């Protein structure tokens, strides 16, 4: 099973599961990270920086540590 930090720029997948403590889970949820939703990795910043993802109409940046908590299934 892949997680979001392993996705390559330009690739899309569906969110399969979110492994996060309550506070992070709430935030991800409110930002639109929901199980079954389609997610696209737009780009990653240089030097191991954050990833830029697109969820529906929203663009979001998050660090790799947070991205690795989100399990995905490739579309």
């Amino acid at each position, binding site marked *: 099973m892949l997680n979001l930090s392993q996705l390559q720029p330009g690739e899309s997948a569906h969110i399969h599961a979110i492994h996060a403590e*309550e*506070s*992070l889970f*709430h*935030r*991800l*949820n*409110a*930002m*639109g990270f*929901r199980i079954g939703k389609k997610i696209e990795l*737009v*780009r990653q*910043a*240089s*030097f*191991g*920086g*954050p990833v*830029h993802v697109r969820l*529906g*109409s*929203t*663009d*979001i*940046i*998050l*660090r790799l540590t*947070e991205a690795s908590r989100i399990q995905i299934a490739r579309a």
Partner: protein
Amino acid sequence: MKRIALLGMPNTGKSTLFNRLSGASARVGNWPGITVDLMSAKILIGGHIAELVDLPGLYDLHGFSDDEQVVRHFLANNSVDLVMIVLNSSQIDRQLSLALQIRALGLPALLLLNMQDEAKRSGISIDIDEMSRQLGLPVASISAKYGDGCPQALQLAARHLEHQRAPISASEISSKLEADTQLEQQMEHIVKQSVQMPLQLTDRLTERIDRVLLHPWLGLPLFFGAMYLLFQFIFTVGAPLQEGVAWLLDLIRSDILEPLTASLPAWLHGLLLDGIYDGVGTVAAFVPIIVLFFLVMTMVEDSGYMSRAAFLMDALMARVGLDGRSFVMVLMGFGCNVPALMGTRVMRSRGMRLLTMMVIPLSLCSARLQVFVFMSAILFTTEQAPLVVFSMYLMSFVTIFLTALIFKGKMRSSEPFILEMPPYRFPTAKQIVLRGWLEVRHFLNRASKFIIFGVVMVWALTNFPSGVPAASEATYAGQIGQFFLPILEPIGIDAKLAIALIFGFVAKEIVVGALAVIYGLQGEALELLMAQQLDWVQGVSFMLFTLIYTPCLSTIATMRSESKSVGYTVLALGWSLLLAWVVSFIFYQSARALGY
């Protein structure tokens, strides 16, 4: 008086709406149980005066961020007659959850779908009546930026103001909220009934710009280039304005105040002119810079570039516990620390904000640069002097990173780094000007008394006891210098330089002038005497101490008003004094040990 609360997710234009409805009349108020600034304003609505409060942006009513807690506390401790929920129409499919949460609390609410212009451009259409029917709440579509629909929304609000609310406790808020899964189902249902979204958003200008600005190789150079241009703009336009203010103040002093106070006793004359009037002048000197800074920062923030800066710089800044937005503020601190400290308000996590405010005073601002240029010109050759000044900049960066590393454990950010990347937007001129004006007023309200008091104190220290020459070693300042000599001698600072450091506490701009008074000489004679009395090791040690020990009174005053904590301000001040001494000590003693 009725009270209306504005509530919404970040980046929904909530504050833009607040500014539109309140004009320039907004005030920072104190609220029970809340430690951050909340803006409020009295507005006329349906023939009555009502109080409008701008709550911080939040994603989720039972979230854990600092701002989310503030909103919960506010709703629990203050009665609210109407909640105006501001949502971004383009993101209605996920933001509607907030409206459902408010509805679940039983608060009287009105839903405002903002950025209708942007949604329309993206091909999103919303059936307002259907949504209102499904939600059981009044709904209006607006554009806070251009004002479309705002009068109608206010009429709607006036009609719904009459409802009474049942008081809620903070703990009840979480329990009253329905289970998330249930909310999600409701949300999906309502969106399906009333919103039409295209599969692919049509407004992709942002994507094209991002392809360049966030390019893997070009992104960082473009960011530094942009920062350099903004910096140059603020401080090259700001410098003549500051000089203009200084010239005007001098003119008022010499042509009006001097003749008026000439007959007064010397001490009163000194107190009024060298104390209070100079204090007012110190405050006034910051006004042009603060206005310019926020003109530029409003553009950077509202355009959406701030989250791009965070994206680009995060890999480097995360290691020292900061993020890209901190980096922007630290960079701006190299021009002037005061607006940079005020600008940290863009960071919503208190831990990260305090850490950023801790390091900003270590940025070598333009006032300190004057001291270094003066000193290095006296003590070094023309070839060496620029290198000395450059090494001060390097030292400034080193102390910034060191301080961040040391304090990052203490001031940890409580929030995960998950930011929205809004589409690029043009702020309106009105938004920009209003922000500049509000920030200046904020600075004047919060910092001016403290600064004037400090200037009067330093004036008294350097002029009393009466009968001794001003700024001489017989004054209280000289005596304080003498008292601290045992700890200042090991870093090469003598009694005269110690007095200059006490002056430098007020503002670094006056250090060079103070040296002239202390040595009793002007211009070249002063430079010759100082070159005779000091060697280069002492000079550099003095410069290092000046760089680190404390920025200026205005910075301290701003730090106190922005952090709202005297303890934190004392910690920051104490740390910089300690660090300054240690750095100067290591430099001075090793240079001497090496035989210089």
